[in-house]
């Protein structure tokens, strides 16, 4: 049995994705023989590695940009120095001209100072300059040295008063030299500026490039992370959904289904266990069905047997009574001397036949009553009855027995008891049983019947001064065929069914029965029934 339920209730994009090669990837991941823990760890590790790679690329780009910026700074600095050189040169020319004009050789010191500054700056520039600019710097230095030699000549001429010579030297030697140096420095500045321009271009290009690389990396990372998340999570969700559908089937009582998942991890193991469980459930279900079927047919057979038993009992009731009717009938008409005078010697055995015949009749009645109650076939004939009448009937029926045993026998009914509703004949039977028992088990003293109304309940009570019941037997006293001592049955007679039948009849009325007894002093039996019993079967 295969379920479609695993793909049911899924968002359509997921269904589409699972149908694509991605679905195959999901199943492939599921098939990997590794624990869920390891798979999750691998997934997180993949994402972590992506982040590390992205960080490395960013760092590299950053470093490269910093280096180029640095180069730009250096070039910028060199341009600054070149400007200082130009300035120093201008100052030298200015001071030289001043020396000529003021004829003051003290100015030479200022010229030297500017020269020193020039040389210092040039040395710094030379140290920082790239190799291709060294030749240019050498040329500048050479021209400056020449210019300084010319300055010395001019200074000497000024000191010696040869102003014309000094002027000539200035014009013919010094000025061209300065012009040359100026040109050289200018080309140096131009070279640096060109370099700066190209550096700016390359920095801009590098930053654009790094931006693209970073963006690409970010996009790739996000896509990979999403893919990894999808693949790993669905490789777990699919078996869970399968299990969900499978368990729903089980919950609906359809056992024996099989769950198929590609997983070779904990989910695979779980699926295997569920399949096992399913097989077991199926087996148990089958067994239970067979057992239920067996029970049903057994029950049918029992019902048949019970019906047969009831019919048998009904038939037996008649079949037993018919000969008993003849026995008791013939005995009675013989004792009534319908056949002529009965000799004294025969009267006693005839009375014995009658007594035993009546006892047999009671036995038959009790057994039939009890089997009817057991079969749940006894129905109460509910109607209005008089409690006073019942007590009177019972008292009248048993009066002779009490007289015979020389026992006091009283019956008391509260006069305020209204007509009651129930099965009067059965209530009579109950009271007769209790009072009959009391008289039977009492050798001397008294037996008293008392009925009173307690709210909506009738309380029938029979007290005696008889042999009493041992405490440990009180519980069993209402069970079938129970008399405290089997010898009692022989001594006192009785079927041992009276109390049991009485209890059932009282319960059919919705009441209860009980006893308080003291061994050797007497017993007080009582039962309660509702003043008005509506139902037949209780």
């Amino acid at each position: 049995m295969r379920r479609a339920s695993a793909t049911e209730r899924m968002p359509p994009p997921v269904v589409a994705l699972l149908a694509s090669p991605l679905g195959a990837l999901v199943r492939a991941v599921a098939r990997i023989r590794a624990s869920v823990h390891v798979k999750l760890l691998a997934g997180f590790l993949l994402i972590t590695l992506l982040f590390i790679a992205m960080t490395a690329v960013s760092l590299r780009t950053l470093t490269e940009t910093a280096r180029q910026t640095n180069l730009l700074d250096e070039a910028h600095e060199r341009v600054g120095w070149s400007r200082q050189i130009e300035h120093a040169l201008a100052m030298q020319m200015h001071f030289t001209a001043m020396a000529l004009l003021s004829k003051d050789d003290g100015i030479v010191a200022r010229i030297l100072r500017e020269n020193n500054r020039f040389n210092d700056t040039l040395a710094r520039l030379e140290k920082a300059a790239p190799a291709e600019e060294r030749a240019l710097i050498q040329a500048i230095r050479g021209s400056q040295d020449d210019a300084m030699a010319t300055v010395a000549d001019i200074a000497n001429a000024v000191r010696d008063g040869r102003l014309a010579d000094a002027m000539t030297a200035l014009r013919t030697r010094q000025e061209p030299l300065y012009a040359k140096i100026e040109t050289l420095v200018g080309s140096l500045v131009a070279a640096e500026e060109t370099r700066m321009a190209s550096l700016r271009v390359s920095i801009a290009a590098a930053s654009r490039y790094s931006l693209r690389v970073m963006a690409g990396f970010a996009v790739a990372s996000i896509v990979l992370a999403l893919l990894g998340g999808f693949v790993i999570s669905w490789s777990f969700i699919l078996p869970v959904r399968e299990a969900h559908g499978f368990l729903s089937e089980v919950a609906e009582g359809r056992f024996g289904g099989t769950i198929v998942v590609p997983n070779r991890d904990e989910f695979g193991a779980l699926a295997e266990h569920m399949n096992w469980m399913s097989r077991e459930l199926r087996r148990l279900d089958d067994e239970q069905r067979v057992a239920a079927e067996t029970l049903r047919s057994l029950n049918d057979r029992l019902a048949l047997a019970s019906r047969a038993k009831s019919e048998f009992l009904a038939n037996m009731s008649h079949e037993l009574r018919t000969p008993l009717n003849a026995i008791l009938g013939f005995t009675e008409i013989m004792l009534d001397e319908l056949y002529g005078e009965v000799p004294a010697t025969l009267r006693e055995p005839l009375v014995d036949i009658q007594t035993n015949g009546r006892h047999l009749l009671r036995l038959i009645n009790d057994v039939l009553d009890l089997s009817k109650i057991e079969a749940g076939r006894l129905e109460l004939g509910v109607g209005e009855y008089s409690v006073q009448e019942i007590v009177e009937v019972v008292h009248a029926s048993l009066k002779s027995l009490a007289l015979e045993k020389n026992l006091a026998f009283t019956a008391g009914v509260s006069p305020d008891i209204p007509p009651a509703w129930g099965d009067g004949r059965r209530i009579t039977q109950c009271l007769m049983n209790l009072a009959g028992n009391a008289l039977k088990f009492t050798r001397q003293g008294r037996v008293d019947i008392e009925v009173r109304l307690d709210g909506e309940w009738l309380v029938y009570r029979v007290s005696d001064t008889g042999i009493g019941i041992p405490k440990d037997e009180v519980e069993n006293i209402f069970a079938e065929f129970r008399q405290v001592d089997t010898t009692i049955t022989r001594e006192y007679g009785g079927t041992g069914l009276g109390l049991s039948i009485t209890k059932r009849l009282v319960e059919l009325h919705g009441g209860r029965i009980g006893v308080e007894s003291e061994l050797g002093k007497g017993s007080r039996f009582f039962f309660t029934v509702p003043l008005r019993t509506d139902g037949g079967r209780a």
Partner: protein
Amino acid sequence: MRDRTVLHIEDNEYNRKIVRQLLSRTPYRLLEAADGEEGVAVAQRELPDLILMDVQLPKLSGLDATRLLRADPRTAHIPLVVVTSFALSGDDRRAMDAGASAYLAKPYSPRDLLALIHKFLPEN
């Protein structure tokens, strides 16, 4: 005035014999039938003054026979006593429902039966 007739429908010979003995010293004329069909036939032919009907009879049950007799206008008015197996089993109610005038539980005392007969057919 002719002697009043009692029809006793009962399949057991001994029980028929008891009634026979019981009525032998009375002026009642006794008719007997051993099953339900015969009982109905005798009742319709002889139109007795009282019918004693056992409840369980061969061929036709006592209750069915009672219903038949009650349905027949010639016999519908005849007093009919059903002898039930067991008063407490509900036979009494069924007997009265079938149309019996009275019922008597088996085993009955011959004295009680005679009293019942006297009640329906007082001796002059």
